[in-house]
């Protein structure tokens, strides 16, 4: 396990799963989970490139940032979801299409 490509493959699989989740699920919470997957795929990429290509800690630093950002994002997103539920009684994103008008 000391080749860059293995990390990139793992990261690509994670990204694809996340994207798939985001695009196909109707449940807002599930979509959020998909977003987490995408973010973590990016984290893996950062750390891998940092280890094999640049040989410094820039990538690690960036991944810590992203984890923190993901936590903040989850807090904001869950608050939105909660409000959506309070407003509509469901969290189905297909019906939350007020932007269309």
């Amino acid at each position, binding site marked *: 396990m000391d080749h860059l490509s293995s990390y990139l493959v793992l990261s690509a699989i994670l990204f694809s799963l996340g994207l798939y989740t985001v695009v196909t699920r109707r449940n807002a919470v599930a979509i959020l989970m998909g977003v987490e997957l995408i973010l973590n795929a990016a984290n893996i990429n950062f750390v891998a490139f940092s280890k094999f290509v640049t040989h410094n800690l820039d990538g690690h630093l960036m991944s810590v940032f992203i984890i923190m950002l993901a936590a903040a994002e989850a807090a904001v997103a869950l608050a939105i979801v909660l409000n959506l539920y309070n407003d509509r009684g469901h969290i189905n994103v*297909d019906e939350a*299409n007020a932007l*269309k008008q």
Partner: protein
Amino acid sequence: MIKLALFILFLPLLSFVFQIFSFRRFEEKKGEWVSVGIQFVTLILALVMLGMMLSRSDPNFSLELHQSWLDLGLFKIDLGIYIDNITVIMLVVVALISALVHLYSTAYMAGDVRFSRYFGFLGIFTFSMNGIVLANSLFMIYIFWELVGLSSYLLIGHWWEKDSAANAGKKAFITNRVGDIGMFTGMLIIATVLGTFNFQMIAERIHDGVWAANAGMLFGGIDPHKLLTVAGILVFMGAVGKSAQFPLHVWLPDAMEGPTPVSALIHAATMVAAGVYLTVRIFPFLTADAMATIAFIGGFTAIYAATIAITQNDIKKVLAYSTVSQLGYMVMALGTGAYVAGFFHLVTHAMFKGALFLASGSVIHAMHHSLHHLDDHETDPQDMRNMGGLRTKMPITFGVFMVTTAAISGIPLFSGFLSKDAILAGTWAYAANVHDGWLASLHLAWILPVFGFGAAAITAFYMFRLIFMTFYGEAKQPQIFKHIKESPKVMTIPLIVLAVLSMFFMFTLPSVNPISDHGWFTTVVQSPESAVTTGPAFELEHFEHALHAAHTPAMVTSILVAGLGILFSVLVYFLNKISAEKLAVKLGALYRGSFNKWYMDEFYINGIIRPFLKGCDALGRFDLDFYDHYLINGWGRNTKRTSKGVGLADDLIVDGAVNFAGIIFQWLGWTLKFIQTGKIQNYLIFVLIGAAMLYVVNVF
């Protein structure tokens, strides 16, 4: 002296301001006495000036004060006052007549509707006249000239409820305007050539040859002498209007519509004197031809107006035409070069004509009161046919009338004799002095003395006719006669003062020779030398010689013709040896012509005013039917048509392009709105597709 003059100028204006702005407060509290007081103070100041002038007795005395008023760099207009002996004498005349008229009016106008306004207007009239007298330049004289025109308009139309009074005011104003146009043009010519309006400087510059040098260059090579003649006659046109010379005399008889004291003021001291005074002022720069023109206008006016006065029955109309005739005398005198005589007659005439008008006012006043007493509003109080025998009832008025009639008729011992005789001698000398030119060829110049003596005879005749019809004979209306009373003291005192001033010695002192006019007047007033150097001018020295020679024959003839006129008048109206009616029938056309004022008014109405109005009407119709209809409206219609075309193009092409762009974007929007689903996941897919496409494009 300058300060005194300024006081004399502005005090009457003060009276005007007082009357106009405080009349409500003083209307019932004898506010008119303030004006009378102011006027008498003015008179005293004027007399002080006269005293100073007489003690100096210098014929060349003059004073000037001027103040720059408008400075245009190259061209300056100064306003100022110029005082010489003539100014002082004229100031005294104006102040005296004005003061007496004020005093007289307190009784005559008592109970009038616009009492204080009347006194205010008298004040501004006096102010304007003083301005003309004191003016040092044509420009300043013009300003006050128009002010005199305005105040005469206001006073003639004092009783504007009467149509005739309102029309008379208008007529006076408009007729004067005709003359003023000429005067203004003349002024402008002079100012253009010489660059000044100042009398002294005009004469000086003409004398120094500035006129000869500039005139041709400025006016397209015209002969400078001819231009000077034209300028002189044009300025004189102003005098033709103001001094009621033929053919602009028509306003004056109508001006009788004003109150009688106003007539006295207008005819004796202010308005009509202004024209003669202007001619006196421009005398030094009149050319020989201009003077001949002036002399003929004056001479014709003198005889023309006299013939009208014979047949008038209105007491004031007779006096009005007699004024026109006497003004003709003065103008003729100035035209013939008898400068002193002309001005002398202006002064003596002011006294006796002022008295005549005020005396006729006294008669009218008495008639009016009598008619009022009888509750008769139909009978004309001014018609002499309703009078007769008044001498016993109104002894003072009668006495004054006698004295002043003797003066105007030219009877020795009275002032009119001296001045009229001097004028007649002047015309005689003029005619005898003409040796070459168009005047000599047919002895045309002799027409002037003929006019002069003829008018003298006629004047004597109609003035005595007036006396006989008014004061002698049977009372024609016994009813009215019964209630006639002599006028109050404030009216008779001015009359007596003026009658005394119509005596000869008032003007000949210290000499008391009744047939020689050598006295203080001829000492202080002397004819100026002509400043004209461009061509034939008035030759003072020759003229003085001829005048000396003509003096005695002219005097004898003038006494003879006056006697003839009086004799004829006595025969017709006193002894009734000749019947006036039969004479009128016998003379037929002549009588009708005179009675109808030689149809001058009709000539103006039918010959000028009507055709003018018709012309205006035709032009108006042309304007409406042709100009408005075809040109203006046609242009409008064309514009409308063009606009319609342009509008259409606008709609189709410009708007079409704009709308087309709109439609395209509408369609684009309509198409694209289908991908706007509002579903976040769809958008994500588009992003994915886009990213994939970018990848494909980049890699391959």
